[in-house]
């Protein structure tokens, strides 16, 4: 018997994620962790900034 288990909003983590499991006869066949957070583009925002500004900005990730 195959069963799908979906955890819509995982608690006690930073950010938002959805866990989808497909279980067949007690064995996990497929496991997906979906990040549903909006993109913030920190890697791109750091380009061109002064080197001594990076710690201020990156610490907000």
């Amino acid at each position, binding site marked *: 018997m195959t069963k799908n288990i979906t955890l819509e*909003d995982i*608690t*006690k983590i*930073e*950010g*938002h994620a959805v866990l989808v499991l497909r279980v067949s006869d007690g064995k996990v066949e497929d496991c997906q962790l*979906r*990040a*549903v*957070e*909006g*993109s*913030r*583009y*920190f*890697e*791109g*925002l750091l*380009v*061109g*900034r*002064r080197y001594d*500004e990076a710690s*201020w*900005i990156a610490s*907000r*990730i």
Partner: protein
Amino acid sequence: MSEKLKVGVMDITGCNGCVLSVAFNEDEVLDIFNLIDVQEYRFVSDPAGEKPQFDVVLMEGLVASPRDIELLKDIRARTKVLVALGTCAHTGCIPAYRKWTPKENLAHLQYDKFDDIKDVDPTPQDAHVKVDAVIPGCPPNRREILEVIKGLVLGKPYKPYTMPVCVECRRNGNFCLLDLNKPCLGPITVGGCFAICVNAGLECWGCRGQTADANLPTFVRMLEDKGFKREFIEERMRTFVGLKIPALKEVMAE
């Protein structure tokens, strides 16, 4: 005492640091939870049940995806008081700085394969829904969060701090970083943070937003006299609160 306030502590796109700051009141957190009825706070417990109604919601984060808009509007419809928690909620914070970042720096980072992580314009919460109060700061001051909750429980709205960072900074006996030629934005920034950055010898980046009477032209000129380039000053001022200082464009054009 009448019925306990039904409270939610939630977040849309953000780092969850603001939500965590609520729990950083370690000595008081148990007392708070006795005074209020926490319906939803994912860091602490599973949600109470199907779509509860709230008296107060502390909402972290900015709007950066269609899911954020949906969630924010849903919560707004179910709460009496919506408190924007932290700089992302207040101004869009650093993620909103991408408005001034060249597109080519960002293009390769887009995950456009998946529908649920499509982008929308990075915007603060008040661009989408009515926000009743703001707790500014990146991260917000945990004591201030406590004061806001206390005010709501007592029915006496918390009066936000409006003086510049410099007031608390001088009271703390700090050496003025502007005198040391560091680009400190303290004079034009709302305090209430006890000048935490300057206490550690780091200049203020203005994360709590500008004071109502900030004199931008004079301040920019002063930084220029100290040898800072216009582009640098502009970048620095926009990093945290860019969307809330439209006047900067005119000042820089002069």
